[in-house]
C-alpha cells in the first residue's frame, strides 16, 4: 500500500516535471517551426548557441514579473479560477496518458502512467470535458467584455459539439478492442494490423476533431485575432495568461497520444515484439511527436474556417458519418467479419 | 389437406388486399388479378370436393380465437358434404362472374375497388360456408352483409344507390339481431359454438328452447335470404352493378340463410313447429314474390322478385325437413339465376343502362347469343325437363307433399305456373315482338369475355340437374351426398305416385309459358291483355304496386320511429334531460373551479411548494404508520 502511494507520488512528480519541460520545449519548437514555415529564423538571441532554446524560460520569467491586471468589473474569484482550471484539467487528463509501453518487472507490469484505471479513455474524456469550464469562466469573469464572451461561447460550443463526434469516432476502436483500457486497446492492435486500416473513416474524423477540440489553426475560431482580438483571454495577462497555452499544449499532447493509441497501434511497430522495451518507447514517442508536429504544421499552413462552416461540418457531415460508421462496425463485429 | 382448405379460403382475401391496397397501381390488371385469385381458389376447391365426395370430413381448428371462461371459440374450418357443395357452387359461380365483370366493368370508375370488394365478398362467403362453428359463420354472415352494403352502394355518388345500400344493411341487421339471439341461446345451452360439440348432443334441448333457437336463427335467415317480412331490401339492391346482383343477390349470399338452416338441421329436426314456420314462410314468400314479378317492367327487378320467390322454394325444401332438396335447388338456382342476371346485364350493357322492358323488344336479332342463353335459363327456372330447374323444383314439391304438407305443395305448384309465366313474359317482351328501342340506340352483342361465362353457366344450367338429380343405382346422388351431413328430418306421411307429380309440374310450367305466349306474341294479344286488366283490376293494381308493402312498412315502422325520435327523444330527452344535465355538470365544475382557483396562482414555485408539502405529508403519514 505504502509502496503504491510512494510510486504514485514519484510518478506524479516526474510527470509534472516532464510535462512542464515539454510545454517549454514545445513553445520554443513551435516558434522555430513557424519561423521555418514562414521563411524566417524565429527566436535566436536568447542562448544563441542553442538556437534560442532558452527563450521560453525567459518568457516565463517575464510573465512572472509582469503586472497582473485584473479588470475592475471582473468577477475576481472566477477570473482567478479560470486559468487554474485551464491548466489543471488537461494536466489531469495527461495523468492517465501512457508515457510509454508497460515495463515488465518480474511477473507484473509497471505502467508508465500515473493513474491506470480500466476506464482510462472515459477518464481522459471526462477531464478534457471539464476543460471547457476554464474558457466559460474566462469569458464570463471578464466583466462584460464582448470579445471574451463571444470567444468563450464559440470555444465552448465548438468543444462540446466536437467532443460528441470525437467520442463516436473513438467508439469504433473501443468496440473492436472490446475494452476501455488504453493498454488493452494497444494490445489488441499488436496481434494484427493497426486500427487505422480497419477504421479509416473514424481515423479521419478523429483527426479533424483533434484539431477542433484543441482549437488549433483551421479551427481556432475562439481566438480569431481579426474578429475577436484574442477571444476569451483578451483580458488576461502575465502568468494567468500563460496558463491557457500551457493547457492547450498538454491537450495537444494528450490528443496525439490518444490518436496513436487508438489508431496507430501505440508502441507497437516494426522490429518490436515486446522485449526491447526501449524500442517500443521510441516508436511511441516518434508517432506522438509526429502528431504534435502535425499540429504546428497545420498552424503554419491552413487558413481559418468560418464559424458556420465549422458547426455545419460537425453536425451535418461528421456526426452522420460517425453514426453510420459505428453502426457498420457493430454490424461487422456481430457477423464476425474476418479481420483483413 | 386442412391447409389446402385454408389456402382456398384465404386466396380471395389475398386478391382483395392486393387490389385494395395497391389498386392505384394495378389499373387494368385489377380484374385479371381478382379473377386469378378466385381461379386459384376454385382450382384448390376441386381436390377438396373430391375428397369430400369420397366421404372424408375435415374439421380443423387453426387457432383459438376467443377463450373466455369455459367458452372456447376456435377459428376453424369444416369441410363436409354440405360445405363442399357450397364451396363448389360459390367458387365456380363467383369465378364465372369475375370473368364476366372484367368485360362488364371495363372503363368504370373504381375498377380495382370493385374487384377488391368482390374478392372480399367471396372471402366472407367462403368463411360463412366453411366455418366450423357458429361464430365463424357469423363473421362470414356479417362480412357478406357488409360487402353487399358497399357493393350495392358502389355508385355511391348516386343517392338511390346509397339509399339502397343503407336499406339492405339496416334490414339485414334487423334479422341479425335474431341470429345473434339464437347464437347466444346456443352458447347458453351448449357452452360451445362448434358444430361438432352442438349437434351430437342436440337432443338434450327442451322442445320449447329448440323452437326458440330455430325461430331466432330463421329470423336471421329471413333478413339475409330476403324472406317475407324482411325481403324489401333485395329489389332495391338492384341499384348495384349487375355482376353484384348476380353474385350476391342471386347466386350466393342470399342463399346463406338456406345453407344455415340446412347446417342447423339437427336443431330444426328437434322442432317441427320451427320447421313448419320455415316452410310456411318460404311458401308464402314464393307465392307473394311471384305475384309481384307478374306485372313489372323493370328487367332486373323481375329477376329480383324471382330470386325471392325461388329462395322461398328452397325454404320450403329445408322447412319440410328434406334439406337435400333445398340445397339442390340452391345449386341449380345459382347457375341459372346467375345466368339470367348476367344476360340481363348483357342486355343492359347493350342498351346503355336502360332496364325498362317497354323500351326493348325484338332484341333477338341484335343479340342472338344472349337471347339463346336467356331462353335456356328461363326454361330452367320454369321447370321444363330436362333442364336443371325441373329436377330440383320437382324434388322440393314432391318431398313437401310426401312429408305431409299438401297446402304448401299446392302453393308451390301455383307459384311454378306463375314463375313460368313471368319469366317468359320477360323473354317475349325483351327479345321478341317489334322493336321499341328508342332512336339512336344500337344494341349489340356483348364481348367474348362476357359471353364465355354466359355459355359456361348455360351448360351448367342444362346439365347440373340431370347429373345430380336423376335416380341412379337406387338413390339420387345429391340426396345421398347431402344426407351424409343433414339427413331428412321427418318421416314420410303420404306415398305418392312420383310420375303424377312430375306431370303436374311439367303441365304447370308449360301452361305458364303458353299463357305468356298468348299474352304477348299473337296479333290480338294487347286487346286480350287490356280485357284481363280491366276485369281483374284490383288484383292487377295490387300486383303492380307490389301489395304496397313498402308503404305499409313506412307507415307502420318508419313514421312512428321518426315521430318518436323527433318529438320525444330529441325535443324532450335530449334537450331537456341530457343536454341540461350536461350543462349542470359543467356549471358545477365551473363553480368548483372558481373555488379551487385560489390555489392556482400561476407561480411555479407555489406549485413546487404544494408538491413538496404533499410529499412531506405522505412521507410523514407513512412514517407514522410504520412506527
Amino acid at each position, binding site marked *: 500500500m505504502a509502496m503504491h502511494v510512494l510510486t504514485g507520488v514519484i510518478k506524479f512528480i516526474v510527470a509534472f516535471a516532464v510535462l512542464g519541460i515539454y510545454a517549454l520545449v514545445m513553445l520554443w519548437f513551435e516558434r522555430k517551426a513557424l519561423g521555418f514555415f514562414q521563411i524566417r529564423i524565429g527566436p535566436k538571441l536568447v542562448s544563441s548557441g542553442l538556437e534560442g532554446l532558452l527563450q521560453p524560460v525567459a518568457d516565463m520569467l517575464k510573465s512572472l514579473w509582469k503586472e497582473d491586471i485584473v479588470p475592475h468589473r471582473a*468577477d475576481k*474569484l*472566477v477570473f482567478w*479560477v479560470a486559468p487554474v482550471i485551464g491548466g489543471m484539467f488537461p494536466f489531469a487528463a495527461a495523468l492517465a496518458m501512457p508515457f510509454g509501453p508497460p515495463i515488465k518487472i518480474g511477473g507484473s507490469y509497471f505502467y508508465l502512467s500515473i493513474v491506470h*484505471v*480500466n*476506464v482510462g479513455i*472515459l*477518464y481522459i*474524456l*471526462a*477531464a478534457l*470535458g*471539464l476543460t*471547457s*469550464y476554464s474558457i*466559460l*469562466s474566462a*469569458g*464570463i469573469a471578464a466583466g*462584460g467584455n464582448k470579445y471574451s*464572451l463571444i470567444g*468563450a*461561447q464559440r470555444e*465552448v*460550443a465548438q468543444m*462540446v459539439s466536437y*467532443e460528441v463526434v470525437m467520442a463516436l469516432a473513438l467508439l469504433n476502436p473501443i468496440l473492436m478492442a472490446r475494452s*476501455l483500457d488504453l493498454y488493452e486497446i494497444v494490445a489488441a492492435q499488436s496481434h494484427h494490423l493497426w486500427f487505422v486500416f480497419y477504421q479509416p473513416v473514424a481515423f479521419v474524423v478523429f483527426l479533424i476533431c483533434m484539431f477542433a477540440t484543441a482549437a488549433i489553426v483551421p479551427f481556432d475560431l475562439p481566438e480569431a485575432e481579426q474578429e475577436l482580438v484574442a477571444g476569451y483571454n483578451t483580458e488576461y495577462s502575465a502568468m494567468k495568461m500563460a496558463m491557457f497555452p500551457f493547457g492547450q499544449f498538454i491537450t495537444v499532447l494528450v490528443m496525439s497520444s490518444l490518436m496513436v493509441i487508438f489508431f496507430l497501434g501505440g508502441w507497437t511497430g516494426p522490429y518490436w515484439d515486446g522485449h526491447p522495451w526501449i524500442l517500443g518507447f521510441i516508436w511511441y514517442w516518434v508517432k506522438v511527436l509526429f502528431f504534435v508536429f502535425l499540429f504546428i504544421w497545420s498552424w503554419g499552413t491552413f487558413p481559418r474556417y468560418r464559424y458556420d462552416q465549422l458547426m455545419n461540418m460537425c453536425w451535418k457531415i461528421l456526426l452522420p458519418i460517425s453514426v453510420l460508421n459505428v453502426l457498420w462496425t457493430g454490424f461487422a463485429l456481430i457477423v464476425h467479419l474476418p479481420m483483413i | 389437406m386442412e391447409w389446402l382448405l385454408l389456402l382456398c379460403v384465404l386466396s380471395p382475401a389475398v386478391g382483395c388486399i392486393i387490389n385494395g391496397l395497391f389498386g392505384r397501381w394495378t389499373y387494368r390488371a385489377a380484374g385479371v388479378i381478382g379473377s386469378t385469385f378466385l381461379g386459384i381458389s376454385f382450382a384448390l376447391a376441386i381436390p377438396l370436393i373430391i375428397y369430400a365426395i369420397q366421404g372424408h370430413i375435415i374439421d380443423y381448428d387453426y387457432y383459438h380465437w376467443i377463450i373466455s371462461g369455459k367458452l372456447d371459440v376456435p377459428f376453424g374450418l369444416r369441410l363436409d358434404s354440405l360445405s363442399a357443395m357450397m364451396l363448389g357452387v360459390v367458387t365456380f359461380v363467383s369465378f364465372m362472374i369475375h370473368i364476366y365483370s372484367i368485360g362488364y366493368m371495363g372503363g368504370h370508375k373504381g375498377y380495382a375497388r370493385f374487384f377488391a370488394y368482390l374478392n372480399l365478398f367471396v372471402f366472407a362467403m367462403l368463411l360463412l360456408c366453411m366455418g366450423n362453428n357458429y361464430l365463424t359463420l357469423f363473421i362470414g354472415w356479417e362480412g357478406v352483409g357488409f360487402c353487399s352494403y358497399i357493393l350495392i352502394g358502389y355508385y355511391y355518388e348516386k343517392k338511390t344507390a346509397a339509399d339502397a345500400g343503407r336499406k339492405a344493411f339496416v334490414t339485414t341487421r334487423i334479422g341479425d339481431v335474431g341470429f345473434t339471439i339464437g347464437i347466444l341461446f346456443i352458447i347458453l345451452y351448449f357452452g360451445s359454438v362448434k358444430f361438432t360439440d352442438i349437434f351430437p348432443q342436440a337432443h338434450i334441448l327442451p322442445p320449447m328452447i329448440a323452437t326458440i333457437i330455430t325461430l331466432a336463427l330463421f329470423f336471421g335467415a329471413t333478413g339475409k335470404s330476403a324472406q317475407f317480412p324482411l325481403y324489401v331490401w333485395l329489389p332495391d339492391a338492384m341499384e348495384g352493378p349487375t355482376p353484384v346482383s348476380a353474385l350476391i343477390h342471386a347466386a350466393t349470399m342470399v342463399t346463406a340463410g338456406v345453407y344455415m338452416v340446412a347446417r342447423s338441421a339437427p336443431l330444426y329436426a328437434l322442432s317441427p313447429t320451427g320447421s313448419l314456420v320455415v316452410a310456411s314462410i318460404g311458401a308464402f314468400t314464393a307465392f307473394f314474390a311471384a305475384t309481384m314479378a307478374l306485372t313489372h317492367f323493370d328487367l332486373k327487378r323481375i329477376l329480383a322478385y324471382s330470386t325471392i320467390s325461388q329462395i322461398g322454394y328452397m325454404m320450403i325444401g329445408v322447412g319440410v325437413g328434406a334439406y337435400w332438396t333445398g340445397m339442390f335447388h340452391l345449386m341449380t338456382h345459382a347457375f341459372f339465376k346467375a345466368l339470367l342476371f348476367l344476360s340481363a346485364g348483357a342486355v343492359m350493357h347493350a342498351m346503355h343502362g336502360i332496364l325498362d322492358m317497354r323500351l326493348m323488344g325484338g332484341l333477338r336479332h341484335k343479340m342472338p347469343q344472349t337471347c339463346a342463353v336467356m331462353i335456356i335459363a328461363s326454361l330452367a327456372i320454369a321447370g321444363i325437363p330436362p333442364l336443371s330447374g325441373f329436377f330440383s323444383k320437382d324434388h322440393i314439391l314432391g318431398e313437401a307433399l310426401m312429408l305431409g304438407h299438401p297446402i304448401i305443395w299446392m302453393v308451390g305448384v301455383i307459384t311454378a305456373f306463375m314463375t313460368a309465366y313471368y319469366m317468359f313474359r320477360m323473354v317475349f317482351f325483351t327479345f321478341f315482338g317489334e322493336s321499341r328501342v328508342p332512336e339512336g340506340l344500337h344494341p349489340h352483342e356483348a364481348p367474348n369475355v362476357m359471353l364465355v361465362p354466359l355459355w359456361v353457366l348455360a351448360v351448367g344450367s342444362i346439365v347440373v340437374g340431370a347429373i345430380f338429380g336423376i335416380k341412379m343405382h337406387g338413390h339420387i346422388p345429391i340426396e345421398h351426398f347431402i344426407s351424409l351431413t343433414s339427413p331428412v328430418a321427418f318421416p314420410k306421411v303420404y306415398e305418392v305416385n312420383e310420375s303424377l307429380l312430375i306431370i303436374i309440374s311439367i303441365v304447370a310450367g308449360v301452361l305458364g309459358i303458353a299463357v305468356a305466349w298468348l299474352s304477348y306474341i299473337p296479333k290480338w294479344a294487347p286487346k286480350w291483355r287490356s280485357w284481363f286488366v280491366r276485369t281483374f283490376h284490383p288484383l292487377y293494381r295490387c300486383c303492380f304496386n307490389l301489395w304496397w308493402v313498402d308503404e305499409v312498412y313506412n307507415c307502420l315502422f318508419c313514421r312512428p320511429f321518426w315521430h318518436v325520435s323527433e318529438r320525444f327523444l330529441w325535443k324532450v330527452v335530449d334537450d331537456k334531460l341530457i343536454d341540461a344535465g350536461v350543462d349542470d355538470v359543467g356549471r358545477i365544475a365551473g363553480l368548483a373551479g372558481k373555488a379551487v382557483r385560489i390555489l392556482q396562482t400561476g407561480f411555479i*414555485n*407555489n406549485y413546487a*411548494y404544494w408538491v*413538496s*408539502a404533499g*410529499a*412531506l405529508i405522505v*412521507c*410523514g403519514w407513512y*412514517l407514522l404508520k*410504520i*412506527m
Partner: protein
Amino acid sequence: MTGIEACVFAIVSLMAIVGALGVVFCRNPYHSALWMVFSFVGIAGLFALLQAYFLTALQIIVYAGAIVVMIAFVMMTIDFRKVRGLSKFVPQWLWGLIISFGILIDLFILTSKMKIDVSQAGKNLAIAGSNTKALGMELFTSYLFPFEMVAVILLVALIGVVVLTKRGIK
C-alpha cells in the same frame, strides 16, 4: 470501512454537500454552476467508493461535462447582467426551508427504520474485474427495452427543444 476509505468518504461527501450548499446560496448563478461541478465531482467520488467506476466517469462526463456546461452556456447566451441582478430568494422562503427540513427529517427517520441485507455488499458488481462489463451485460440483457425507451426519450427531448426554441418553424 477502513481508515483511508473513511477519510476519502468524509472528503468527498463534504465536497458534495458544500457544493450543493454553494449552488443554493450563491448570489451569482455562474458561481452556482461552478459549485455544482464541485458537488458533482464529490458525488463521482462517492460512486468510486461504491465501486461504480463506470458511473464515476459517466457522472463527470454527463453531468459536469454536459449538463452544467449546457446550463452555463445558455446563461451566457442571454443577458448575463439580468440573470445576475435578481434578488436571491422568493418571499415565501421560510416555508421552503421548513418543508425541506421536514423532508430531511422524514428521510432520516426512514433511514433509521430501514433494514438492508448487507451480506451481499460489494459483490456482483464486476465481471472479471470490470465494472463496465457487468453493467453492460445487465443493461443490454435485462434492461434492453427500457434502454431503448430512454433513447426515445432523448430523441423526443431533442426534437422538442428544437421546436421550442427555433424561430419561425411552421
